[in-house]
């Protein structure tokens, strides 16, 4: 197991390294002068030279990449050009909304997907299954930001139960913060939950046809008992894989949802940074998001190996 984790960790670092090169290179090949792009055409020559020095544009690309990466490794992400604050502080602030939001949404996803997926899979072809399948057909086609708008319309404007957006911070207590994140989390979760539900359903249907379930049935267990005792763990394998991928979709989805609910998270910061052409900030946010995505992939791989010992061996 230790060897497996080390190997996966190596893959994580390699992926992160290549991603950082891609991000750096892409913003490096921007046509024209980055300092001019950031400041716009009305910039005075003095501010232009100052920004060029700050960005280190006079050095070559390799040494710029090295100092950028070196800074990242020592926790110095540079200074945001528009906010005039260290990028690290901005990221930490915003992450305190995006990460809890994504985790909260993941919890909703699992809470919806597991019971309904199990019900549909264990009763495949029956009425309950058909209704769940029909609803999931709609859920998959639902654009999450439109669903978010409808939630705002119903719960904030028509019923007036919650505010239409914004986030007053975690200082007011955990419950207050969670209450404000509930609608965004549901909007993020519903489409993903319907996907997860279908994965669990088809995994269960596959399992019902396995020999070991027939054996369990032959020895006298009922369908449900057999599925519950022997099928459950096996059905979890595809579910965990998809969940790992879904977390990265939740993070990406949070970019849009944060903009719908005007939550000051990473996604909103990113949209603003792009609007203000704050390239230092954009680079750092994207790298941070990629880091979250590949860290989650890494955790999924480890959980996967815990459930299924066969995966711990290196592939031959």
């Amino acid at each position, binding site marked *: 197991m230790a060897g497996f984790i080390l190997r996966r960790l190596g*893959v994580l670092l*390699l*992926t992160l390294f*290549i*991603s950082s090169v*891609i*991000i750096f290179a*892409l*913003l490096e*090949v*921007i*046509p024209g002068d980055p300092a001019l792009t950031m400041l716009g055409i009305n910039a005075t020559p003095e501010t232009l030279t100052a920004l060029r020095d700050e960005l280190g544009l006079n050095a070559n690309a390799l040494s710029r990449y090295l100092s950028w990466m070196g800074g990242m490794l020592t926790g110095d992400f540079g200074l945001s050009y528009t906010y005039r604050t260290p990028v690290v502080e901005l990221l930490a602030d915003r992450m305190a909304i995006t990460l809890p939001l994504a985790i909260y949404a993941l919890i909703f996803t699992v809470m919806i997907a597991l019971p309904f997926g199990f019900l549909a899979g264990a009763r*495949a*072809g029956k009425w309950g299954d058909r209704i769940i*399948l029909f609803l999931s*057909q*709609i859920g*998959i*086609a*639902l*654009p*999450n*930001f*439109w669903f978010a*708008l*409808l939630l*705002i*319309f119903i719960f904030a*404007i028509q019923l007036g139960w919650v505010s239409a957006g914004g986030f007053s911070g975690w200082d007011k207590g955990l419950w207050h913060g969670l209450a404000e994140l509930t609608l965004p989390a549901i909007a993020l979760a519903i489409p993903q939950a319907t*996907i997860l539900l*279908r*994965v669990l*359903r*088809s995994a269960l*249907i*596959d399992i019902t*046809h396995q020999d070991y379930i027939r054996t369990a049935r032959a020895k006298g267990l009922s369908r449900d008992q057999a599925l519950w005792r022997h099928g459950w763990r096996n059905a979890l394998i595809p579910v965990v894989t*998809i969940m790992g*991928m*879904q977390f*990265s*979709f939740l*993070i*990406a989805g949070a*970019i*849009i949802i944060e*903009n*719908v609910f005007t939550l000051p998270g990473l996604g909103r910061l*990113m*949209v603003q*940074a*792009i609007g203000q*052409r704050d*390239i230092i900030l*954009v680079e750092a946010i*994207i790298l941070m*998001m*990629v880091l979250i*995505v590949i860290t989650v*992939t890494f955790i999924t791989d480890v959980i996967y190996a815990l459930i299924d010992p066969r995966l711990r061996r290196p592939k031959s």
Partner: protein
Amino acid sequence: MRVWRISPFLIASAGRRNLISGGVILGIISLAGLISFFWTPADPTIMNISNRMQPPSMAAWLGTDHFGRDILSQIMAATPVTLSVALVGVMIGMIGGIPLGLMAALIHKPFFDHVLTRGGDVLFAFPAIIMAMLLTAGFGAGISIAMLAIGLFNIPVFLRITRAAAMQQRHMTYIHSARLAGKSMPRIACEHILPNIAPVIILQASIQFSLAILAEAGLSYLGLGAQPPTPSWGRMLADSQTMIGLAPHMAIIPGLTIMLTVIGVNLIGEGLRQRLDPYRSRQANYVEMDIS
């Protein structure tokens, strides 16, 4: 004498039924998009402030927006944009991913396979929306950037699925006999393996197409897709947000359009699956949604 038959739609297999209903939905929407090149009920860009936020009526079938623009005309004019961004996005993914996947599976060099799969993994760490933002930060927003971002995201998807499917075919007897007959590996890949794995790829393409429509809508909602005055479903939703209390139809109609389009594509995908993969679909309506 005429023999009366039950409507073929009712006795058709589930696969057929899905294909027909999906085809009808997508057909109507595409047709509306095509018609918009010649005719729309009103000019989708003309503003008429005195007539703003009108609910659906005989004059404006789907109502007007906060500038008094006709919503039906905007929806129609936005259709070709969304569909072409999604289509090109998936095409880029297929053109890039399928040859790479075949190469990874068929070239007997573990190192080469490793580099390609890892490369795919790296690309996969950038969800389409993050890729779009990276590209937009560099090159500015626009339709082609949205296409490219969705396309880049799709490359590793097709790489993986092609590689996995081709790996299964690699050791089949017909491949060995083709080799013995003296065919080169690239020829075998194109003439034998590709036709055999085509169903898997087509199914994946239908799934990616529906995801691409959602991605395009999301990007244009954030202002990273088609730029004004070109209408887009996503931006119509963004515009509707502040007016939602006064004119809910401004939000409901574009959202329903997106959802119907995606349902249409998904139904076609489901129907194709039931046709192309009858063994699995017979097992109690086998449904699997690959989100990758």
